[in-house]
């Protein structure tokens, strides 16, 4: 039988997610609700593919008739899409599904929040691997709107010692990515750790920094791959760090120190780290802060050290304008204010901001799902949900 564009690969069921000790325990029906939302996301990826037909059959010819030329950039395509009834329906459904995912996660977490906060307190108590600092505030670029509709952002504390936003993040990411990031929601980190081991077998980093770690899910595979390394994971949000630290403890990973800090003001000496990692971090930064942060990362990295950054692919002239416009959806409609600007940048230019040289630049793909174990060669999915798939671009450099 032919596989439907609307089912693609059936998402794995939510019971596959690893239930560590601090995981917000879902009931039978809450699990079913997550299954529904994951399936809905999968289905909507199929609906999204219809935008291609709209583009070819309606938007391009109409634009050409009116302007006597083709679309020149993604913004023109976006303006045309915005008026199209098919795109509008898909967008209304996609936005609503993101909101449903938030509601579903928050309802699981909030009904048991007292127990979760207590469990976290027990796991975190007296541990030097969690260092919070109440002076640190989320920068305005990170808190002006709730990024990807995550209610409360990364830093809201409903009560002292609260972890609810971290727990909600953990509970729902499997669903948003239709299970693509795997049972430990760490597909990105696993792909990076495996790629680095495969590509650079002689690399023995002693100090690793993960910037903007959120709940640390993607740094744990790196810490596990280099058990003798001292791994520092920083974030500005206390609730996500509390949760992330408790989660790491629950999963038995003890060589990561979670520190509440703003990467714009770190006081590590020059060349302190052998490896600096950012994962899905850059796109949440304003252009001004990217410049500042890149120069800090360049400063803290040791000569001969490695900087790697994981992102969804940036827009290159080779990428189809419709794909660019669809990838931009998250910017305008999923509260990702800097997504479009950042993805429109040249990744080499970003590296130059950190003092890295073009000849040292490297880039490869990393996938959570592979056919043959080589993480730089992704398995093909039936329809891609642009911006959500478990396939990333990794770019960076060895500092010379």
């Amino acid at each position: 039988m032919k596989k439907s564009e609307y089912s693609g690969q059936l998402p794995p069921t939510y019971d596959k997610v690893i239930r560590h000790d601090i995981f917000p325990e879902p009931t039978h029906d809450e699990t079913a609700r997550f299954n529904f939302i994951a399936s809905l996301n999968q289905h909507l990826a199929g609906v999204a593919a219809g935008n291609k037909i709209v583009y070819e059959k309606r938007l391009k010819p109409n634009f050409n008739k009116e302007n006597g030329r083709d679309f020149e950039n993604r913004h023109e395509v976006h303006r045309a899409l915005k008026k199209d009834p098919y795109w509008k329906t898909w967008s209304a459904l996609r936005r609503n599904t993101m909101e449903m995912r938030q509601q579903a996660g928050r309802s699981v977490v909030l009904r048991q929040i007292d127990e979760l906060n207590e469990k976290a307190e027990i796991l975190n108590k007296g541990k030097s691997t969690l260092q919070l600092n109440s002076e640190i505030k989320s920068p305005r670029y990170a808190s002006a709107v709730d990024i990807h509709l995550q209610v409360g952002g990364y830093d809201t504390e409903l009560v002292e010692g609260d972890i609810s936003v971290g727990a909600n993040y953990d509970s729902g990411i499997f669903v948003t990515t239709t299970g693509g990031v795997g049972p430990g929601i760490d597909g990105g980190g696993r792909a990076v750790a495996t790629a680095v081991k495969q590509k650079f077998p002689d690399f023995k980093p002693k100090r690793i920094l993960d910037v903007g770690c959120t709940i640390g899910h993607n740094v744990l595979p790196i810490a596990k791959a280099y058990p003798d390394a001292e791994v520092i994971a920083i974030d500005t949000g206390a609730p996500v760090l509390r949760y992330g630290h408790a989660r790491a403890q629950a999963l038995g990973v003890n060589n990561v120190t979670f520190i509440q800090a703003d990467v714009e003001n770190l006081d590590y000496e020059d060349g302190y780290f052998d490896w600096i990692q950012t994962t899905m971090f850059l796109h949440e930064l304003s252009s001004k802060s990217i410049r500042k942060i890149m120069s800090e990362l360049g400063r803290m990295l040791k000569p001969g050290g490695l900087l790697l950054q994981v992102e969804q692919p940036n827009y290159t002239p080779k990428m189809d304008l419709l794909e660019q416009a669809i990838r931009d959806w998250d910017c305008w409609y999923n509260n990702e204010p800097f997504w479009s600007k950042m993805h429109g940048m040249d990744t080499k230019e970003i590296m130059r901001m950190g003092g890295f040289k073009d000849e040292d630049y490297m880039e490869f793909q990393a996938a959570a799902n592979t056919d043959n174990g080589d993480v730089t060669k992704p398995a093909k999915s039936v329809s891609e949900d642009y911006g959500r798939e478990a396939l990333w671009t990794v770019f960076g450099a060895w500092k010379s």
Partner: protein
Amino acid sequence: MKKLNVDYIADAGKKAKGKRPWFLDNPEVEKVLSITMAIAGELAVARERLDTLERILESKGIMNRDEIESFIPSENDANERQTWHAEYLARIMRIIQQDREALETAPDMNEAVEDLVKEFTEE
């Protein structure tokens, strides 16, 4: 440890900070779409629960799921079920029924409250 005083039912559905974009020309329609999708979700949840129940019953040898496929309702069963369907449909299709009734009834039975208010307050 401080306990959290939270209305978890309302708070689960809290709005994200930032202005919400509306996509359809008519926001009322988009709200109905949103409610419809939530109900679709709840139907899937109920369906999954039923599926679990059937599989447990089967695994305990209490029933065989083929029995469901080959089940033929008795005359009485059939009657009860079809009545249930009729009631269910009437309930969810009420607004259309009332729309039609409005078309059918004489104008004086469709008097608007506003008109009545006006009529009885005018001197």
